[in-house]
C-alpha cells in the first residue's frame, strides 16, 4: 500500500519536538514518538511551528500530501489538536488571541535530506508578512549576545569558547535568560544542520562566519598580540551577527536544533565541520559537482519573476563586492594615516624640544599633542569603518551567495521533477509494450511502477511549486531585512563620522589660542 511505502520513507525520521506557537506566548510541546507510532499519521521529523498570525484562515491542508492519510492528518490538524491530542496539553492561550484556531504547526519541514525522495515540506499557505508583522514584536523578543571569548586548552588542540547569552520572553524556551558556552565549530555545526534541513525547500539560511586557519592558528599558538586579539573580536562580532540573523527568521527560530544550540549546556561536537575531515572533503566534492550540474541544467523558466530576481541579485552582488573592496582600502589607508600622524606627532615633539624660542617650542609641543589625539581618532574611525561598514558588506555578500544557492536548489527541484516525468513516460511505454506482448505477470509490476512514478511526478511538481512559493516569500523578507539593515548600519556609520568631526573640532579649537600666543 502506498501508505506503507510512505511509512518506509519516514522510517528514518528523527523524533523531534512538535510545537506550536501562539502569539509567541505559548509553547506546545509533545513527544514525537507518539507521532510515529500512530500508523495513520506519519509525520515528518522536525516540525517547527511558526507564529500563528491573525489570519484566521488557518493553515490550509498540505497540498503536497500524496497520501490520503497524510492529507487527513493535516486536515484534522487545521481544526484542532490532532493526532496525539490525548498526549498533548491543550493549547489554549490564556488571552485567547483573536486569531488562531489552528493550533497545530503551521510549518512542517522535511527531515534531514536523504538521497531518496524528499518528504514534501508542508508549508501552510499563510502570508508570511502577516505572520511577521503580527509576530514582529514577539519574534524580536529574542536577544542574543556573544561574549567573553575564552581560550580553552593548549597548543594545537586549543580553541576559543564563546558565551552565548539569550534573553527572551518567548515561552518556547525553558527560561527567560540563559547562557551557554560554545565553540566555533558548534556554530558551524548548527549552520550545517539548518542548511541541510531548510535550504533545499527554499529558505534562505544565513551563512555562518568563515573559517580562518591562519587566524585560529595564531590564537592557538598563543600569540598574545593585537592582531590575534583583533581576530578574536572580529570573530566574536561575526558570530553574534550570525545568530541574531538566524533567530530573526521566523521559521528557523522554531527549529529544535537552534533551540538546543542556545539552551543545552552540552552539545555533541560537530566534527564534520572540520575542513580536512572526511565530511569536509565530501562537502568540497559535492560543491564541485553542484557547480557542474548548475551549468548543465537548462531550466525552462516559466516565471519571469525568478529570472528578474536572479539578475537583480547578480547585479547587487557585483556592486556590493566593489563597494566592499573600496571600503577595505579605506580602512587600510586610514590605518596608514593614523600611523603617519603618530610618527609626525613624535617628530613635531622633537622639533619643539630643539626649538630655542620658548613660545614657539611650547606651541610645537602642543601641536604634537593635538596630532597624537588626532591619531587616536583616526584609529577609532578606522575600526568603525571596518566593524560597522565593511563587515556589513561582507555579511551581505555571503548572504547573497546563500540566496543564489536557494535559487539553485529550485532549479535542481525542477530537474528532479522533469526527470521523474521522463521516467514515468518510459514506464508507461514499457507497460504498453508488455501489454502488447501479453505478459500479465510483468504487467502488474509495470502498473505498480507507473503508479509509483506518477506519484513521484506529482510530488515533484508539488515540491517545485512549494519551493518557488517559499523562495518568493523568503526573497521578499530578505529584501525587507536588507533595506532595514543597510539603513540602520549606514546611519550608525555616519553618526560615528559625526563624532569624529566633533572631536577634531574640539582638538583644534584647543590648539588655536596656543598658536596665536606665539610671541
Amino acid at each position, binding site marked *: 500500500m502506498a501508505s506503507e511505502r510512505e511509512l518506509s520513507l519516514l522510517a528514518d525520521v528523527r523524533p523531534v519536538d512538535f510545537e506550536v506557537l501562539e502569539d509567541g506566548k505559548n509553547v506546545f510541546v509533545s513527544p514525537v514518538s507518539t507521532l510515529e507510532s500512530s500508523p495513520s499519521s506519519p509525520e515528518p521529523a522536525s516540525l517547527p511551528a511558526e507564529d500563528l498570525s491573525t489570519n484566521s484562515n488557518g493553515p490550509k491542508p498540505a497540498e503536497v500530501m500524496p497520501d490520503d492519510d497524510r492529507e487527513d492528518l493535516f486536515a484534522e490538524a487545521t481544526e484542532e489538536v490532532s493526532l496525539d491530542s490525548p498526549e498533548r496539553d491543550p493549547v489554549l492561550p490564556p488571552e485567547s488571541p483573536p486569531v488562531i484556531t489552528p493550533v497545530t504547526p503551521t510549518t512542517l519541514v522535511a527531515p534531514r535530506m536523504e538521497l531518496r525522495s524528499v518528504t514534501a515540506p508542508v508549508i501552510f499557505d499563510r502570508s508570511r508578512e502577516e505572520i511577521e508583522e503580527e509576530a514582529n514584536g514577539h519574534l524580536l523578543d529574542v536577544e542574543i549576545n556573544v561574549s567573553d571569548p575564552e581560550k580553552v586548552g593548549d597548543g594545537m588542540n586549543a580553541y576559543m569558547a564563546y558565551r552565548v547569552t539569550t534573553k527572551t520572553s518567548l515561552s518556547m524556551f525553558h527560561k527567560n535568560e540563559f547562557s551557554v558556552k560554545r565553540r566555533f565549530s558548534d556554530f558551524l555545526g548548527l549552520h550545517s544542520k539548518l542548511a541541510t534541513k531548510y535550504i533545499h525547500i527554499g529558505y534562505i539560511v544565513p551563512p555562518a562566519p568563515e573559517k580562518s586557519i591562519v587566524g585560529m592558528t595564531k590564537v592557538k599558538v598563543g600569540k598574545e598580540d593585537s592582531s590575534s586579539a583583533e581576530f578574536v573580536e572580529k570573530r566574536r562580532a561575526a558570530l553574534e551577527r550570525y545568530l541574531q540573523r538566524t533567530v530573526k527568521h521566523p521559521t528557523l527560530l522554531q527549529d529544535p536544533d537552534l533551540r538546543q544550540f542556545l539552551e543545552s549546556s552540552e552539545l555533541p561536537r560537530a566534527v564534520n565541520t572540520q575542513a580536512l575531515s572526511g565530511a569536509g572533503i565530501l562537502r568540497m566534492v559535492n560543491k564541485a559537482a553542484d557547480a557542474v550540474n548548475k551549468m548543465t541544467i537548462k531550466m525552462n523558466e516559466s516565471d519571469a519573476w525568478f529570472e528578474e530576481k536572479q539578475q*537583480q541579485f547578480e547585479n547587487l552582488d557585483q556592486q556590493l563586492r566593489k*563597494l566592499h573592496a*573600496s571600503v577595505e*582600502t579605506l580602512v587600510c589607508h586610514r590605518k596608514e594615516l593614523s600611523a603617519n600622524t603618530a610618527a609626525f606627532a613624535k617628530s613635531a615633539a622633537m622639533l619643539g624640544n*630643539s626649538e630655542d624660542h620658548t613660545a614657539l617650542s611650547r606651541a610645537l609641543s602642543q601641536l604634537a599633542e593635538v596630532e597624537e589625539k588626532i591619531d587616536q581618532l583616526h584609529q577609532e574611525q578606522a575600526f568603525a569603518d571596518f566593524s560597522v561598514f565593511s563587515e556589513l558588506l561582507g555579511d551581505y555578500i555571503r548572504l547573497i551567495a546563500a540566496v543564489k544557492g536557494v535559487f539553485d536548489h529550485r532549479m535542481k527541484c525542477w530537474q528532479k521533477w522533469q526527470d521523474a516525468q521522463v521516467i514515468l513516460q518510459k514506464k508507461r511505454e514499457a507497460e504498453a509494450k508488455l501489454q502488447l506482448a501479453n505478459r500479465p505477470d510483468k504487467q502488474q509490476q509495470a502498473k505498480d511502477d507507473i503508479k509509483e512514478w506518477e506519484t513521484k511526478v506529482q510530488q515533484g511538481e508539488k515540491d517545485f511549486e512549494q519551493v518557488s512559493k517559499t523562495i518568493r516569500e523568503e526573497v521578499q523578507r530578505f529584501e525587507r531585512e536588507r*533595506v532595514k539593515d543597510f539603513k540602520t548600519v549606514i546611519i550608525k556609520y*555616519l553618526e560615528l563620522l*559625526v563624532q569624529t568631526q566633533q572631536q577634531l573640532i574640539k582638538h583644534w579649537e584647543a590648539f588655536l589660542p596656543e598658536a*596665536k600666543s*606665539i610671541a
Partner: protein
Amino acid sequence: MMQEGSDDGPDFLSEEDRGAAEALPVMTAGPSRCSHLKKPSRERSSRWDMLRAINVDLQTDAALQVDISDALSERDKVKFTVHTKSSLPNFKQNEFSVVRQHEEFIWLHDSFVENEDYAGYIIPPAPPRPDFDASREKLQKLGEGEGSMTKEEFTKMKQELEAEYLAIFKKTVAMHEVFLCRVAAHPILRKDLNFHVFLEYNQDLSVRGKNKKEKLEDFFKNMVKSADGVIVSGVKDVDDFFEHERTFLVEYHNRVKDASAKSDKMTRSHKNVADDYNRIGSSLYALGTQDSTDICKFFLKVSELFDKTRKIEARVSADEDLKLSDLLKYYLRESQAAKDLLYRRSRSLVDYENANKALDKARAKNKDVLQAETTQQICCQKFEKISESAKQELIDFKTRRVAAFRKNLVELAELELKHAKGNLQLLQSCLAVLNGDT
C-alpha cells in the same frame, strides 16, 4: 616659502606698517586663472595667471619690487615671467619683465654662494626644481585606463589630477618667487650686479645646466666641504653666541628634516583617504541607481555626501601640505643655508687662526713678515666682517622663523577648524534627511 616672503614683512616693518602687512594677500590663497586643460594623453601647455602675490612690504618698498607675474608650463620646462618695479637708478626703466627658467635661478643662487663678499650672509635657499613627473605619470595612466572605468569616475579622477597638477604648479611658482623676494629684500644682496642682470637682461642668459664634468666637480666639492665641515666644527668657538647657534642649528636641521618627511607622509595618507571616499561615493551611486527597493534614494544621498565630504578631505590634505609640510621644507632649506653660513665663518676663523700661527712663525724666523702680516690682517678683517653680519643674520633668521611658524600654525588650525565644521555640517544635514526619510 610663500610664508617666507610675507615673513620678511614683520622684520623690517615699523610698528604701524606691521598691521597692514598681515592683511596682505598671501600667494597661496590667491586664485589663479588657468586656461582649459587639454586631454591628458597629449602634451599640454598651460598658462597660469598669478595674481598679485607676496608683497614684501619693506620700508624701501618703492625701491625694488619683484614678483612672478606669469608662468608657462611646457613639456619639461617652466618659463617664469619675472616682473620688476623699481625706482632705483641702476635700471634703465621703472617697470619691466623678463622670462626666466629654473636653471637661471640656480645660476643666480650659485653666484651668490660663490661670492666671497657674501660669505657673511644667509644666502636665500634656491628653489627646488619643478617636478611634474609624478603628476604627469598619473595623468597618463588615467588616460590609458579610460576604458576601464565609468564616465563619471573618469571625469572625477581627471578633475582631481588636474587640480593636483595645478597645485604643484602654483607651488613651484611660489617658491621661485619667494627666492627672488628674499634677495630683493636683503639690503646687500639686492644690490648684486648679477641680480640686476637677472632681472633686466631680456635675452637668454645662456646659462646652461651643469654638464657632467661640472656636476662631478660639484660632487667632490661637496664631499670636501662636508669633510672640512666636520673638522671645522670640531674647533670650539670662543663666542658663546655662535657656539650655541651651531649646536642649535645642527640639531634643529635634523629634526626639521625628520618632521618634514613625516609631515609629507601624513598629508599623502590624507589624500589617499580622500581618494577612497571618491571611489566609495561612486560605488554607492551605482548601487543607488541599480537598486529596485526604496533604499536607492538612501544610497544616492549617501553617495552625494561622500562626494562632498571627499572634496573637504582633499582640501584638508592640501592645506596641511601647504601650511605644514611646505613650511617645514622651507625651513629645512633655510636652516641648511644658516649652517652653511656658520661653516663659512668657522672656516674663516680657522683661516684666521692659521694666519696668526703663520705670522708668529714668520716673526720668529723673521722671514716674509710683511706678507704674513697682510695675510693675517685680511683674515682678521674677513673673520670679523663675517662674524658681525652673521650674528645679525642669525638673529633675523630666528625672528623670521618664529613669525613664519606662528602664521602658518594659526592658519593651519583655522583651516582645520573650518573644514571640520564644514564636514560636520554636511554629515548632520545628511543624517537629518536620511532619518527623516526612514
